[in-house]
């Protein structure tokens, strides 16, 4: 009995493998803070913890203990990340860091690691922070047992509008993802009739964002391995799977059945042989209809729409700042001022802010809605608001910082006023400067 129990437990652990795309495909939306000299994206601090730690926590909550972290092999990003995983990471997820070429697409990355994946797998970006209970998502995936399950979320009010949201078509009866298209300014929206034949009811949303979190069946990887023209997950693979649901010709052309049939689950096989069970009987089984021919596609998809809580990605500077604000916002149970830090008595650290280890803040300063990293030295009468200050930053007296991101080892000298700036690592902001809305990068770095 106990042996049996042990066995099932073991199997459950192997149900999904995770693939974390770390610092991947974000191009330079995070310039200059995720440059090589500073930190890889996965290690950028959010509330003084590396972003990837949140993802790993989430996976652990989901009961997934086997993760492959894919990161570009150029530069020292991979080294830094491995260092973090081996030395600083304290969770239970077993991570395998794999480096791939910098310019390779997300689907190509999957192809590169296909031998390491033996089960259905979940692709997670390293920059996703969500309050969604992963078990809800996984349960919904298990329930419908689809080829693809994607997570979409309704972005919060505070999210900037600079990112236009895609058109997302969902069949509300089956939660199937049936249409996805990037926003267009002028062109008409064009929907295939074959789509409306297969899915007669389609709800088109313009208020949902793709979380880039996908759960795939293992056979998708087999197909991916053979089709080298699929380069990106979100641009190529997802649209293809979506269209395979209703375009018979595409299924035939891409020979999707060949891949899908090999991985029929035991349960499905049993049900298929059952005489009483009928799984989603296609409508025109009894009456052939040449005009609206429908077919049973080997591909099924579904969408989990998360609206009840926070979900956000740190893929742009704004979103990154937003993640920080969310994590440190009032009421979150975190250690805001660690005992190792030295905060002068007349200095205020708001309960919507966080201070790192061994950081010193001199008197009459104030920190509001900001996170300050470890080993920083902050002078007198400094006002910090809505900002992210990373580790070992030095800020002189009478400095005002508002809405800025200041990277490791940067220095901001006295009487400077910075608003909405990003300061690269090791950069020194001269004293008494007044700068607004600029990216401050050393000349040498800018050239590189």
């Amino acid at each position, binding site marked *: 009995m106990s042996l049996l129990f042990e066995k099932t437990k073991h199997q459950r652990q192997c149900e999904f493998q995770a693939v974390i795309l770390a610092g991947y495909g974000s191009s330079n939306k995070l310039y200059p803070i995720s440059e090589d000299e500073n930190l890889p994206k996965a290690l950028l601090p959010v509330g003084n913890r590396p972003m990837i730690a949140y993802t790993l926590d989430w996976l652990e909550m989901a009961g997934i203990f086997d993760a492959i972290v894919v990161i570009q092999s150029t530069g020292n990003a991979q080294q830094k990340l491995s260092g973090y995983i081996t030395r600083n990471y304290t969770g239970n997820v077993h991570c395998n860091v794999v480096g791939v070429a910098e310019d390779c697409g997300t689907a190509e990355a999957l192809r590169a690691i296909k031998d390491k994946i033996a089960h259905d797998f979940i692709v997670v970006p390293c920059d996703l922070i969500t309050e969604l209970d992963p078990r809800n998502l996984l349960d919904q995936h298990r329930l419908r047992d689809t080829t693809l399950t994607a997570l979409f979320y309704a972005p919060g009010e505070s999210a900037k509008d600079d990112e236009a949201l895609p*058109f997302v078509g969902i069949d509300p009866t089956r939660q199937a993802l049936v249409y996805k298209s990037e926003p267009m300014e002028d062109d008409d929206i064009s929907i295939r009739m074959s789509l409306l034949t297969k899915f007669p009811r389609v709800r088109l949303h*313009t208020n949902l964002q793709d979380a880039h979190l996908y759960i795939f069946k293992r056979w998708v990887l087999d197909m991916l391995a053979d*089709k080298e023209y699929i380069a990106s997950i979100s641009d190529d693979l997802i649209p293809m799977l979506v269209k395979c649901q209703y375009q018979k*010709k595409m299924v035939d052309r891409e020979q999707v059945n060949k891949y899908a049939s090999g991985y029929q689950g035991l349960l499905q096989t049993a049900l298929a042989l059952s005489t009483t069970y009928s799984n989603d009987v296609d409508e025109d089984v009894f009456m052939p209809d*040449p005009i609206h021919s429908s077919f049973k596609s080997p591909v099924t998809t579904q969408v989990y729409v998360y609206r009840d809580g926070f979900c956000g990605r740190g893929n742009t500077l704004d979103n990154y700042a937003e993640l920080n604000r969310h994590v440190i916002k009032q009421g979150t149970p975190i250690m805001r001022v660690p005992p190792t830090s030295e905060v002068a008595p007349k200095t205020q650290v708001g309960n919507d802010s966080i201070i790192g280890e061994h950081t010193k803040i001199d008197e009459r300063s104030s920190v509001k809605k900001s996170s300050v990293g470890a080993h920083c030295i902050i002078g007198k009468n400094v006002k910090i608001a809505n900002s992210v200050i990373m580790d070992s930053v030095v800020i002189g007296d009478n400095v005002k910082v508002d809405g800025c991101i200041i990277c490791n080892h940067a220095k901001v000298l006295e009487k400077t006023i910075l608003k909405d700036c990003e300061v690269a690592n090791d950069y020194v902001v001269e004293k008494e400067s007044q700068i607004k809305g600029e990216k401050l990068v050393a000349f040498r770095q800018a050239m590189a």
Partner: protein
Amino acid sequence: MPPKNKRPQQHGDDEVEEPLQAVILTDSYDARFLPISHELPRCLMPLCNIPLIEYTLEVLAISDVRDVFVVCSSHIDKIKAYFDESSRWMNPKGKLNVKIVACPDAMSVGDALRELDARQLITNDFILTSGDLVSNIKLDKAIEDHRARKKTDKNAIMTMVVKEAARSHTSRPLEGASIFVLDPVAGQCLYYEPVEALPKKDRIEFAPSLFEQHQEIELRNDLVDPRVDICSVEVPALFTENFDWQRLRRDFVHGIITSDILGKTIYTHLVSEAYIAHIQNERIYNAVSMHVLNRWAFPIVPETNLSPGDDYEFSRGNIYKAGNVILSRSCIVDENVQIGAGTVVGENSTVRRSVIGKNCQIGSNVNLDGVYLWDGVVIGNHCHIQQSILAQNVSILDHTNIDHGSILSKGVTVGPNATIPKYSRLSLEPQPKNNMFESSDEEDDGDNGKKKRARKAGPDASFFSLGLEHEHVLHGDHAPVYIWTHYANDDDDVDERNIKLDTLAYDIRDLVLDEHELSESASDIGESSDDESDLASVGEAFNLNVDDSKKSEEFKKEMALTIERSLVEDHTVDTAALEITGLRMSSNGKYSDVREILIPLLINQIDLSNPVASMKKVLTKWGPLVDKVMHKSEDQVHILSLLQKHCATNPALGKIFLGSLQILYNIDVIEEDAVMTWYTTGASKDGNAEELKLRDKATKFVEWLNEAEEESEEDSDED
């Protein structure tokens, strides 16, 4: 269910809304149900033995409606007479106040509404529906929503009541779907597009500006649109303003929604539980009849006895029988059958899936399947009738077969021993000329443009224009019965096939699809916009492969009919050739098939009592036609082996083989080389004993040919 006298109850301090008015359009302004609709308005056609309009009035009676305007454009007298004599709705104590409004000049819904506007009859919001609505819905909720909406949205002018159903629900028309784009919360209709089934439409497109006011929209291809609309007073006025709007959905709804100037809004009211359908075509008539018998529309079922004096009783297997029905001991009444009072069913007869009216006489050994017999139909013995509508007082004499999809109008008598092919439409009255696609081939030149359009519309259209120009009349021991040809809407380019799809019991395998219509395009991977159109396609094996044999079978049958008619009616060779070519091209048939049909028919024309003269006459006349279906010398060989094969079937025919051969040779249809090839190769040698005998007979002829050749060669040598 008697009309209720209950007035709407007042709710607290709410102001009492005036009861709605209702407008019933009795005319469908289309050519469905011909030839029955030529003599009877659609709203008076019985469905499950009750005139359709009764169902419509029933729906209105249980809603908050008082004044009902019955708008008629055709058959006005009949509708007036119906209400005067037999309807219980004219009772002044009744809840409904029915008025007949005659608009004899209206040619469309738009005209009728303009007429209503001109007469200023509409003083309040009204329910606009057609006289063929079958439903068990209570419209109260929809009316309430409509009224509430008018308070919040001053521009709301109309609420369409639509039912959620599966895409392939049988009460949805096959000829075309309506795509509704709705706001999922408020139900506002943001875009409406009618999509015809054929030619196949690839995509629907709409402007992304819809999203400016609505973050989410819903596309619906699964709605049954029964044409029940709750309209504001200004709707008729809008029709007057836009004098070119004809149709309610295509012009009005589409026009209102897409217009930036009018600024009016249209909403939908979705129902999912209630049954609601409108009998817009023959196929749906069939479907809804079955729905009613299967109790989908409960309490609208026969044993509710909506019409006074009815006494239907329900028994197991969805069999509904009136009181004094006489069923013989040995007859079988299978499932889903309704039998009206006074009907007699004879010995050994079988009735399935059928509705039989009052006072019908059904003989013995009759087989009825999916048949709608209206009142007073008489069927003789040994008849087989499938999926057809037989209107009042039709009589079918003994040993008559009627194939599926036939419609027999009032009083028609057919038989005895007749066979009515599928999709026949028979009437006692000749078909009016303007309903013919083309009246005669003399007008060919003038009608070329029209014909071109017909071809474009589909091969079948040209088939009808070429093959069946001649008015058909069935004669017999009864009044002449006219066969109506396929009708066409002459107002615009409707694809004929769409109309056919929704005819009664249309077999989808009879549908002819173009190759590109069978295929579908697929996107390329990496196309995010999904905008490409890839029409380089592979035919999908629907009609092309699987049903090829069926199609060519069909073609052969038609060809045989055409040729036979030409022979019997003694057309000129040119006319016959034209007909053959037309039919062959429209069905994409092969010349070899044509020959296979032509030769036996031709030989059969020869009068065997006087073979020599007859043979000469027939073959001399029709030889040129044979010539026209041949192109190469192999074709001549083919003709010879066909001749051989056919003559071998009968010793009497065997005698004329050699003679026929000789005549064909003499009139230069068959050349010497072909005869030689035929004689020396397997074309003549592979056959049964009879066929070989004929070959032997031909030996003499061949020898003679050889000699003649030698002689001519010698002649030339001597020169």
